């Protein structure tokens, strides 16, 4: 089982002052798949995400990653096990160049992060790899641009490149397309498709058409609970999903 599913939750619950943002969620993410978490606004998708990456403490329940219980771990340690997340609003280091952004991630595994007595030119050995990652996400010409000056869509791409630099086993993407125009959406979708060959991906996404094309399996959340799970084609036939997602009064 542990081999088949890279991430599992049991009875995952988060209560905020009497309000259940996430309630009794059991999730199983298959190794190597693209798993999407969808649901209307306020369904608890992002809360769920924060629970998985330990940025929030669950009120109840258990999280297993690669068969190991990570419920009580610190967020940095979860990341070190290869479970890396992105954020809903773009999370880059604004006053560092794109190359430096990626290098910070490379540095963590490969080198000398506590070395305060060495010149940072030792980091130059990561430049090739960083440039490669930037090329992968189509940011070749932005290497020396401070992140703050990049357009929004490029920042999202940079964020993915930074995440890839950690060479994670599993990536959690929180609305990677939020706030993007069409052109960008297609690019990022293609990128996700490409990297999914190597990594397991769990993504929260609002854009159903993106989800439909990309994901192997979809979990629908409403009001903090799992409503349904399956492939897109199955879900579109599910009346409950239509009603929850598209709203009451659906013809």
């Amino acid at each position: 089982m542990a081999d088949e599913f890279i991430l599992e939750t049991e009875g995952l619950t988060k209560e905020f002052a009497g309000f259940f943002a996430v309630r009794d969620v059991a999730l199983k993410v298959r190794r190597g798949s693209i798993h999407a978490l969808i649901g209307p606004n306020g369904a608890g998708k992002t809360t769920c995400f924060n629970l998985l990456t330990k940025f929030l403490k669950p009120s109840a329940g258990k999280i297993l990653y690669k068969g190991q219980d990570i419920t009580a771990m610190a967020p940095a340690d979860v990341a070190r096990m290869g479970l890396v997340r992105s954020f809903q609003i773009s999370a880059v280091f604004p006053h560092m160049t794109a190359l430096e952004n990626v290098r910070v991630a490379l540095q963590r595994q490969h080198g000398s992060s506590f070395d305060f007595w060495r010149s940072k030119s030792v980091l130059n050995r990561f430049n090739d790899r960083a440039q490669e990652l930037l090329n992968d996400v189509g940011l070749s010409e932005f290497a020396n641009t401070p992140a703050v000056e990049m357009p929004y869509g490029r920042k999202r791409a940079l964020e993915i490149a930074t995440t890839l630099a950690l060479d994670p086993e599993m990536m959690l993407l929180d609305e990677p397309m939020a706030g993007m125009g069409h052109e960008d959406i297609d690019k990022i979708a293609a990128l996700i498709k490409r990297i999914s060959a190597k990594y397991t991906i769990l993504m929260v996404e609002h854009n159903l058409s993106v989800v439909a094309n990309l994901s192997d399996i979809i979990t629908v959340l409403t009001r903090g609970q799992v409503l349904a799970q399956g492939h897109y084609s199955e879900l579109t036939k599910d009346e409950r999903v239509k009603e929850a997602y598209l709203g009451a009064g659906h013809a």
Partner: protein
Amino acid sequence: MTALTDDTLPVTPRAIRDEMIVFVVMALLLAAVPFSGIYPFFVMQALCFALLACAFNLLIGYGGLLSFGHAMFLGTAGYCSAHALKVWALPPELGILVGVAGAFVLSIITGYISIRRQGIYFSMITLALSQLLYFVYLQAPFTHGEDGIQGIPQGRMFGVFDLTKPTVLYYVVLVGFLAGFLLIYRIINSPFGEVLKSIRENEQRAISLGYRTDHYKFLAFVLSGTLAGFAGSLKVFVAQNASLTDVHWSMSGEVVLMTLVGGLGTIFGPVVGAFAIIAMQQYLAGFGQWVTVIQGSIFVICVLTFRRGVIGEIAHYLRRSL
């Protein structure tokens, strides 16, 4: 929480060559002081405070942590060095080592306690810790309380340099300052400095990349405290005494002021700020407590209109890092 210096940072990448040119000019100017007729004790004292401010700046400008208790490192190192020189009669180089070691140990302890909280809580905790230490030093026998440790022998550095000669002392202090300054510069431009910067820019993201950010902040705190201690040890040779003034919270406030005036998170700002404030105290001394009022006004003006500080504004204008 947004980083304190977000709006003060120049966005251009570091221009290391420019910075080294400025550094060389600064070093040459300082080296020429004994030939200029400027009173060397004034410059020596300013150099010690400049180093202290640079160390403080390492923590706030690059770690985003406002310590309101940095005087405790200055004072602790001063007392340790003074005691080592006067009572144990150690040579100057070992005296400095004892002082720096004292500040190092203190920064480990206080860092462990304070680093768990951020923002204003961190500031208040460092302030309270330094006040705690102030009262301890007030009562501890070896500090001689209100009287302080007086008449500290300067001795011969490495058995060669006679520190009782003002010119020799001046160059020793200058070399100490430049060494400390370069070390801080190196820390900022090291692999560690890179991580520190990323934490200040976006701590959540740094965590999600697997950085245990508290460890980095802690190391920054210890480095900053230890270097502040080095400044304190040097100051012992200049002032030939160690007193409660150096541990009092108003000293911590002065360090903040120097750095703020010069420019938080700039390389040369704290040096300029330290010289400006020390010179101001020197020349306005006749106005008695109005000096306090003027210092307070500078705080207010800086915070309201001039948040980048002198060097920060210049750097912003030139779109260069300085």
